[in-house]
C-alpha cells in the first residue's frame, strides 16, 4: 500500500520554526509506524530524528503523537492508521529535534518520587513473604515503561508544568501499595502537595494514552484515598 507520512520537522540548529515534511512511501499494511519512519530516515532523509530501541513496545523510547493520539511508533501498524498519517512530537515537552523531545524534567520527577523500596526492619535470610493477593494489589502499576504518553496527554499537566504528572504517581503507587514497603509516611508527604496528586482532575486521558494499558486514573484515585485515610 501507499501511505503519506506528514511529519513535523524542526531542527533548531537550522530551522526558525517547525515545518511539515511529506513523504510518500510504499509499505506493507503490517509494517509498524516505526518501520515507516525508519524507511524515511534510511532512504529519503537521513536527518529525520527520533528515539527507538526495542521495536516491540517494551523500552518506551518512541512515544509520539500519531494522528493526534499519544502512541508508541513501534506498537501501531500502518493498516490501522489510514492513507495519510500525521506524526508529531509528544506535547508538553521541549522539542529538541523533529520527534525527539527533552524528557529530562519528566524523568527527574519520576526519580523524585523515591521509586525504590523503603524498609527499616531487618532483612530475612531468604525472601520476604508476600501473598499472591498482596502482590496483585500493585501489579498494574509495575508495568510502567516511562514512555511519557500519559503525562504528555494530561490537560492538568498542560495547564501547569509543575504538576508531577501521572507517570510519577503511577510509580509512587507501585511502592505505596507493596505490602513490603515501610515508607508510607514519607511517600504520602511527597504526594500530598499542590503539585502532587491533587492536580489530577480525573480526565482519563492518561488511561487512553497508556500503551501498557495501565489503569492510571484508578491508581491515582487509590493514592488520593490513601492520603485521605492516612493509610493504604
Amino acid at each position, binding site marked *: 500500500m501507499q501511505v503519506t507520512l506528514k511529519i513535523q520537522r524542526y*531542527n*533548531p*540548529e*537550522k530551522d526558525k520554526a517547525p515545518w511539515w515534511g511529506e513523504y510518500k512511501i510504499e509499505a506493507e499494511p*503490517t509494517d*509498524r509506524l516505526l518501520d515507516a519512519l525508519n524507511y524515511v*530516515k*534510511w*532512504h529519503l*532523509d*537521513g*536527518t529525520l*530524528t*527520533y*528515539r*527507538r*530501541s*526495542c*521495536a*516491540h*513496545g*517494551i*523500552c*518506551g*523510547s518512541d512515544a509520539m503523537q500519531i494522528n493526534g493520539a499519544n502512541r508508541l511508533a513501534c*506498537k501501531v*501498524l500502518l*493498516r490501522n492508521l489510514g492513507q495519510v498519517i500525521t506524526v508529531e512530537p509528544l506535547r508538553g515537552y521541549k522539542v*529538541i*529535534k523533529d520527534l*525527539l523531545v527533552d*524528557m529530562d524534567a519528566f*524523568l527527574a520527577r519520576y*526519580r523524585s518520587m*523515591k*521509586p*525504590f*523500596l523503603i*524498609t527499616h526492619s531487618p*532483612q530475612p*535470610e*531468604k*525472601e*520476604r*513473604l*508476600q*501473598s*499472591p493477593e498482596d*502482590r496483585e494489589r*500493585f*501489579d498494574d502499576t*509495575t*508495568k510502567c*515503561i*516511562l514512555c511519557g504518553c500519559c503525562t504528555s496527554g494530561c490537560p492538568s499537566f498542560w495547564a501547569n508544568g509543575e504538576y508531577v504528572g501521572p507517570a510519577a504517581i503511577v510509580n509512587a503507587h507501585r*511502592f505505596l501499595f*507493596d505490602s*513490603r*514497603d515501610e515508607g508510607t509516611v514519607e511517600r504520602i508527604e511527597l504526594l500530598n502537595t499542590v503539585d502532587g496528586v491533587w492536580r489530577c482532575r480525573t480526565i482519563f486521558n492518561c488511561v487512553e494514552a497508556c500503551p501498557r494499558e495501565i489503569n492510571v486514573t484508578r491508581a491515582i484515585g487509590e493514592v488520593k484515598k490513601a492520603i485521605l485515610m492516612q493509610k493504604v
Partner: protein
Amino acid sequence: MVQRYDAVIVGAGGAGLMAALQLAGHANVAVLSKLYPTRSHTGTAQGGIGAALGNEGEDHWEWHMFDTIKGGDYLVDQDAAEILCREAVETVYDLEHWGLPFSRTPEGKIAQRPFGGHTKEYGKSPVRRACYAADRTGHMILQTCYQQCIKNQVHFYDEYHVLDLLVSDGRCAGVVAICLATGEIHTFHAKAVIFAAGGCGRMFRVTSNAHSLTGDGMAVVLRNGVPIEDMEFFQFHPTGIYKMGILLSEAARGEGAILRNKDGERFMERYAPSLLDLAPRDLTSRAMYREIREGRGIGGKNYLHLDMTHLGAEVLDKKLPDITEFVRTYLGIDPRTEPVPIQPTAHYAMGGIPTDLDGRVIMDERNTPMPGLYAAGEVACVSVHGANRLGTNSLVDILVFGRRSGRHAARFVQESDWAPLPPNPDEWASGQINRLRNSIGQERAVDIRDVLQDEMMEKASVFRDAASLTAMSEKLKELRQRFANVKVEDKGTRYNTELLEAVELENLLDLAEVLVEGALVRQESRGAHFREDFPTRDDANWLKHTLAYRGEKGVTFRYKPVTITKFQPQERKY
C-alpha cells in the same frame, strides 16, 4: 573535555547497573549509556531468572550447574558455571530484598516455573527453577536495579555513546564518548572501566534484539588489541515472529504449543522423538531450517507455524498474555483460532570479551589481565554458556558477574592510581566522527546493512559450511570497501543519530568478520555452531575456546583450554 573518575561503567542494562551498585559509596563512579537506563534491552526478557531456590520442589545448585554445562555442549568453563549457579541463589534474594515484585507461591515465596534444559537429578525430569515476575522478569530486574541506583545516587551520563577505549602501557586509562545531545566528545579518564554494553544481534536480518544491539562494546575493545572469545557461537531462538523476529518465549511450547510445517505435520517427532517441541534451542532451530530447506515451509516460504489453537482462551489469556498480545498487535491474528507464522530469530551471543571469574578482561590463553579493564553481561564471555546458552541463564550471568566485576573493580581502584592518558586521547574518536560527518561518499548505510544482515542470515546462521563461510568472508571484504564510501546526510551536531548508526554499522562489520572467520576455522559442530561439512563434535581437536584478534592482517587466532572440574564431556542426548 576531560572528566576524571575512579571507575566508569559502559552500559546501564542489568550487568552495568549491578556493577555500579558495588562501586557506589566506595568510589567515584559514573555510568555511561547510549540509552536512558530503563530503555536497555534487559527490560525485554520475559521468561525468568534461574536459581535453585527449591521453592517448588527439591533443587540444588549442582543440578543447575550440570544442566548449564550440558546445555553448553561442554564448552562451558566449569569453575565459572559453579559460581554462576551457587551465587544465583543469593542474587535472587538480593533482588527480592530490593523490592523486585516476583510472582508468588500460595505460601508467599518466590514462584518458580520449568524451562527448557533445566532438570532435576542430572537430567531425569524437568524442575521448577526459573524465578519470574509474570512475563516481565527482565523489565522488573532492570527497573529494580535502576531504582537501587537512584537510591544510592549513582551518577549517570545518559545518552552518551562510547566510541573508544584508552590504553596506555598496557593499562586501561579510560574511554572516549560522544554526548548525543550536544555532539561534544568527552574523555573519561578512569582507573577502571567496566564494559557492560550488551549483545550484537543486529548483524542478522531476523533478530529478537533491539536496534541498539550493535556490539559496540566488543568492537571498541577489539579495535584496541583485546581478543574476542567464541564469537562463532550465536544462538538462534526457534520462535520469532515471522520477518519481525519478535520473541515468543519458550513458555508457549512449555504450555503445549506445537511446531508444524505446511502439511500440518508435527515435524519435531522426526527430530527429537522424546522431547519433541521442547528440545534445546540449537537442535530445534536446526530442525526448522531443514523443514524450510526441504520445501515444507508454509506456502513454500521460509517460515513455519506455532500452533496454539488447542490451548484454549484460559491458558492464552492467563499464562501467555504478553505473547498473545504480541501476536494480536503485530500479526493481527488471534492465536486462539489461527496458527502463528514463526521462524528462528537471532537471539544471543554466547561469545564476547574474555574475562576471568572476577570480570577482569584477559588478553591471552594464559589469562593475562589488562589492569583496570573489566567486562560483564552479554558483552562478555566468562564462559558460562559455552556453545549454547540455556534459557534463564543470561539474567543470572549479567547479575552474578556484573556484581563480581563491580566488587573487584572497587578494590582495584582503592589500590591503584590512574594510568597516564595517552597524548590526544580523543584523536581516534574525533577522527572517526569527522571522517563520517565530512564524508563525500555515495553509499547509503542502509544498503550495506541490508546486505550484511541478509547474507549473514543465509551464510552464517544456523547451518554453515566452508563454501558459505568463505563466500561470506569475501562479501564482508566488499562491504568494508563500500563502507569507506558511506555518506551521512546529517551534518549537524545534536542527536546526529544517522552518524551514530554508521558508527554502529562499522562495529557490526568488524564483529561479523570475527564470527565468520572463527566459524570457518572451527571444523566441528558443537552447540549453536553447526558445520554441515563437519557435522559432529570433535573433542580431540576442538574442546577449546577461540580467542580472535583483529589487526592489520585480518583476524588471527589463539586457543584457550576449557576448564573442566566436576563433569567430564559426554555425548549430548536429551
